């Protein structure tokens, strides 16, 4: 994590914390995910446990762009800081959110070891959303409501997870296409500028 060649450092009373570009990247992305997480927590939900899970859009995009390790950082920071800011830290809501995030990260880890081209944004979002729901559901079953009747809710919750998973997959796909386009534009514009300067 710490790279001595980078001098973006915070100095206070002789203590120096060195940060790497990766740290900054994680912090920016986590901040984005936390903002979405908090905005989403204000939205009313038709059923407990049903949420669009838009913050997972960031997790999946980070997974595709920067790999699994960075996605773990961003996702865990999002759950931790988001819960502290909303005020649900260590409450049942936090437990559910945390277990869901862990389950979806585990599934993403498996997906990163798939042979061939592997999963695209839509497939990744779908399996992550489903894993999130299963993780959350079993935590709720084991810790909070150990009653067989809870399983009656599973089909409905899973349907919501599949629908929202596919929707967020589409969002991730268009987001990545957008980023790709901007990147191409940026490189062409910088080369154009350079050409102008040379002329």
């Amino acid at each position: 994590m710490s790279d001595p060649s980078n001098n973006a450092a915070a100095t206070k009373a002789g203590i120096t914390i060195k940060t790497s570009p990766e740290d900054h990247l994680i912090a920016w992305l986590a901040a984005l995910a936390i903002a979405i997480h908090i905005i989403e927590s204000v939205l009313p939900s038709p059923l407990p446990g049903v949420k669009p899970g838009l913050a997972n859009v960031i997790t999946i995009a980070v997974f595709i762009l920067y790999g699994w390790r960075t996605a773990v950082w961003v996702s865990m920071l999002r759950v931790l800081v988001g819960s502290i800011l909303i005020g649900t830290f260590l409450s049942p809501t936090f437990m559910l959110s945390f277990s869901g995030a862990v389950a979806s990260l585990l599934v993403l880890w498996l997906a990163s070891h798939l042979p061939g081209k592997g999963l695209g944004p839509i497939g990744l979002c779908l399996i992550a959303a489903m894993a999130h729901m299963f993780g959350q559901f079993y935590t709720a079953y084991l810790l909070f409501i150990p009653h067989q009747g809870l399983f009656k809710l599973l089909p409905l919750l899973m349907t919501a997870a599949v629908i929202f998973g596919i929707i967020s997959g589409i969002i991730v796909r268009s987001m990545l296409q957008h980023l790709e386009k901007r990147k191409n534009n940026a490189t062409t514009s910088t080369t154009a500028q350079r050409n102008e300067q040379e002329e």
Partner: protein
Amino acid sequence: MTRADYCAVLFAALLLPYLYISQWSDDEAGISATIMNGNETTKVSLAHNHTLKVDGALGTSIIKIEDGKIRFVASPCLGKQCIHSGWLAHAGEFAACLPNRISVAVLGEAARFDSIIF
């Protein structure tokens, strides 16, 4: 969309009907009870209304199942304690006809009480 994406969507499309069928079908619904006759144990579902005749040590006890509840309605014993136990609906509830050596217990995930002492 890669081939793995289609596989993931197909998996979800197959999982959902499976969940609806396995969780929402009537056979799995509701609670069940065990009827002990001597050393013999039979499990019955309380989902469908019907009346059972169980031959015990003294004679035939009649056990009725209705709306997810179960009770003794007739027994050849003297005290009729089993009939006075009334309807049993919650996990852990229990009625026995000791002379006829028949007992009924409602099953469930968690019993409401560990034991009841009179």
